[in-house]
């Protein structure tokens, strides 16, 4: 069965510092991995995805994520956090060639960036 784990319920970072939001996955076969962000009372906004190729994926708002197959991880990173990055972040996985496949989401990580 496919699953996603986000081991931290909350991450606290000072503005200007680098941030990392962790994600590990379990899936048979090759995974397709996604990061979404949710601001209060809003839907999910797509940030980035890993399909194949370069393990470092760049996305919206200066975010990037690194795919590590040996560690089955897909951590979200940003070199310099902004207060406006404070939100709920979700990692999701889909299985290779899973036609019409639903996304399997992690439980979410609340990111808080303080001035």
């Amino acid at each position, binding site marked *: 069965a496919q699953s996603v784990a986000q081991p931290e319920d909350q991450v606290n970072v000072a503005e200007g510092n680098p941030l990392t939001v962790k994600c590990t996955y379990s899936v048979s076969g090759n995974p397709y991995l996604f990061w979404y962000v949710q601001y209060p009372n809003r*839907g999910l906004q*797509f940030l980035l995805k890993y399909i194949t190729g370069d393990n470092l994926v760049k996305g919206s708002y200066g975010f990037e994520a690194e795919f590590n197959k040996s560690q089955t991880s897909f951590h979200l990173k940003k070199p310099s956090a902004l207060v406006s990055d404070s939100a709920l972040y*979700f990692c999701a996985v889909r299985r290779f060639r899973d*036609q*019409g496949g639903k996304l399997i989401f992690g439980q979410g990580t609340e990111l808080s960036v303080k001035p």
Partner: protein
Amino acid sequence: GAGVSQSPSNKVTEKGKDVELRCDPISGHTALYWYRQSLGQGLEFLIYFQGNSAPDKSGLPSDRFSAERTGGSVSTLTIQRTQQEDSAVYLCASSLGSGSTDTQYFGPGTRLTVL
């Protein structure tokens, strides 16, 4: 261009009543998904539509839940005889196709409260 829209944004109903939630996908998107976001369960897949194919209903929690998609565009999620445990945010997403690499774009959600 216009994103996924959902209506109503908020719905308060009494236990036992039926409710209908509406989703307008991005124009040209052939795949449409419904998810539910609740505190205890996180983000759960409910149902998926692709073109004229039979929907994947594997995530519907009970036979009180049903959905339809008319004309390959607008979708309605219906919950009959609502229960308090149905209280959640219902999110709709659409994607250009149903391939496993296709990105799902989410609407703002409908917050359902069952009293």
